[in-house]
């Protein structure tokens, strides 16, 4: 693996060397740091809090016009050739890994052209988590604070400088554009930091046998108990890097309209409500249960992976303190 170092104060220069790309990064917006398109290099905020709005939207936008139409019914397809080569800078390893879990969904039997257009043109430049957050549990679910899965380049914060690990050909191409700022490095220096970061993760769960356990618990009263605390706000799904459910709606003015894809949430009753009034998941119990089953059983049945990367956002952001790890532990103990 090729490894470089970059002095930290050269980061703006590094990013400006990549001006051919549209750059997304953690950006300071008032009191919050959000993941967004970077207009001014000075706005990059590497003091990464657990970015509440996740980098998922760089590839799977929260609102996305699929096509537009006029009153005569002439349909104009969104021009996907206009999607620019993009760099997502400062993404956390868990969030980068989440795209590898979204890929089989959006590729699947019928590939999704919108997802593919952005995914194929987006490079992921991650920052290793030296200081995992309080609810991080990536190491319990196949990830790590220094995980490389899904990334093209990994930045490691080594004090005054970053160590850059080149992971893919795309990563190599990108470092090539800023080569004058980079110096060759030795790889072993980061291993201690990686171990220290992993040791800082406080939350753990052994998921062995969970899908099999869930198979026998579908009708168990425990779901009603779990869901009784839930207020159905949907933040667990909106903040989840592996959730992908969407709605399609028409937005119209007098002269024209467009069909838009927007993020949806399985925690809302309207999500499954039939026009007849029948709802196959009529109460929060069924909706809560479906969310857990989708992530920890159905996704395993379909794609041989959990639909979760252990980022811990659903735990940290839940307004009524529903703790996924506690609940999964309880599932494992339930008879």
């Amino acid at each position, binding site marked *: 693996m090729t490894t470089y170092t970059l002095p930290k104060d050269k980061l703006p220069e590094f990013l400006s060397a990549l001006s051919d790309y549209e750059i997304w990064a953690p950006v300071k917006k008032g009191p919050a740091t959000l993941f967004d398109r970077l207009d001014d290099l000075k706005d990059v905020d590497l003091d990464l809090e657990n970015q509440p709005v996740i980098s998922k939207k760089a590839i799977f936008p929260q609102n996305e016009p699929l096509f537009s139409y006029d009153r005569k019914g002439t349909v104009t397809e969104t021009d996907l050739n206009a999607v620019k080569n993009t760099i997502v800078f400062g993404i956390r390893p868990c969030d980068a890994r989440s795209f590898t879990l979204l890929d089989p969904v959006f590729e*699947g039997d019928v590939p999704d052209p919108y997802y593919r257009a952005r995914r194929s043109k987006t490079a992921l430049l991650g920052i290793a988590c030296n200081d995992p957050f309080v609810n991080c549990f990536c190491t319990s679910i196949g990830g790590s604070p220094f995980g490389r899965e899904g990334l093209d380049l990994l930045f490691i914060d080594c004090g005054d400088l970053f160590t850059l690990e080149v992971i893919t050909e795309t990563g190599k191409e990108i470092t090539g554009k800023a080569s004058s700022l980079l110096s060759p490095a030795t790889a072993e220096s980061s291993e201690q930091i990686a171990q220290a970061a992993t040791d800082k993760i406080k939350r753990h769960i052994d998921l062995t046998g969970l899908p099999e356990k869930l198979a026998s618990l579908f009708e168990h009263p425990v779901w009603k108990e779990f869901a009784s605390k839930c207020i159905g706000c949907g933040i667990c799904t909106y903040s989840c890097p592996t959730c992908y459910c969407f709605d399609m709606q028409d937005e119209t003015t007098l002269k024209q*309209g467009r069909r838009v894809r927007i993020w949806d949430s399985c925690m809302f009753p309207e999500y499954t409500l039939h026009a007849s009034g029948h709802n196959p998941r009529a109460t929060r119990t069924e909706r809560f249960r479906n969310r857990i089953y989708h992530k920890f059983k*159905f996704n395993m049945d379909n794609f041989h992976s959990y639909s979760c990367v252990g980022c811990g956002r659903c735990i940290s952001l839940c307004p009524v303190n529903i703790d996924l790890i506690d609940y999964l532990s309880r599932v494992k103990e339930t008879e």
Partner: protein
Amino acid sequence: MNNPYLPQVAKIIDVKDEAPGERPIKTFKVVLENGNSLNHRPGQCAIIGILGIGESMISIASSPTRKDCLEFSVMRLGTVTSALHECEPGDTISLRGPYGNGFPLDDWKGKNIVTIGGGIGQAPLRPIVQSILDNRSDFGDLTVIYGARSSHDLCFKDELLALEKDGPASVHLSIDAEEPGWNKFVGFVPNNLLEIKPSPENCIAITCGPVVMIKYVIKNLLELGFTDAQIFTTMENRMKCGIGKCGRCNVGHLYICKDGPVFSYDTLKDLPEF
């Protein structure tokens, strides 16, 4: 690459008041404006809609053996179906598909076929009936069991009565409650099934209707000696994308839009939520 979200344009060539009841049903005959065929299989669905309003997944109510048009029988219930009910011949709608697996009719050749429908649930069963009538010698006996709330809610009444009279199939209609002038079965479809008692010998039974009806029909078919693998149903859920991505139509780990809508009871009985 092919964009699965882009609809085609279809022209309505005929609108029929199929069932004028409290929840009215209209049957729309449509043709694709580019003259192409949809190349669907019986039991598949299409997403039809109106630009500016939205889309709904609707089963294709006609067999691919009837090549002059596609038919959709639509109950007026929500925003999209209400707007469709305002449409007249000559209007255009959006159409994409076909979606789903369809019925394995090739596997059923040489067998006796029983369809058991309730209400608008006869629409997806109709292409089976038509396909068998159009390839009559490929199949054994055809029995159509169909019921609705009242005689005003029965779909395809004229063609089913004609079929009963002409004899290529045996037809058993029912309504839920007594009505003056109704001399056929009165009661729920699962009970009519027990009256008729089709033999499970070399037979496939396919049912579609309200969920509660499907459950009792399956129970009664099992009672009559049908095995799990001889029973099929076709299901519905709210859908948006039609290609297994938007998430909402799942039953267990399967998506009705792409893994269904046709399921054998063999598969279905192990799925949670059924």
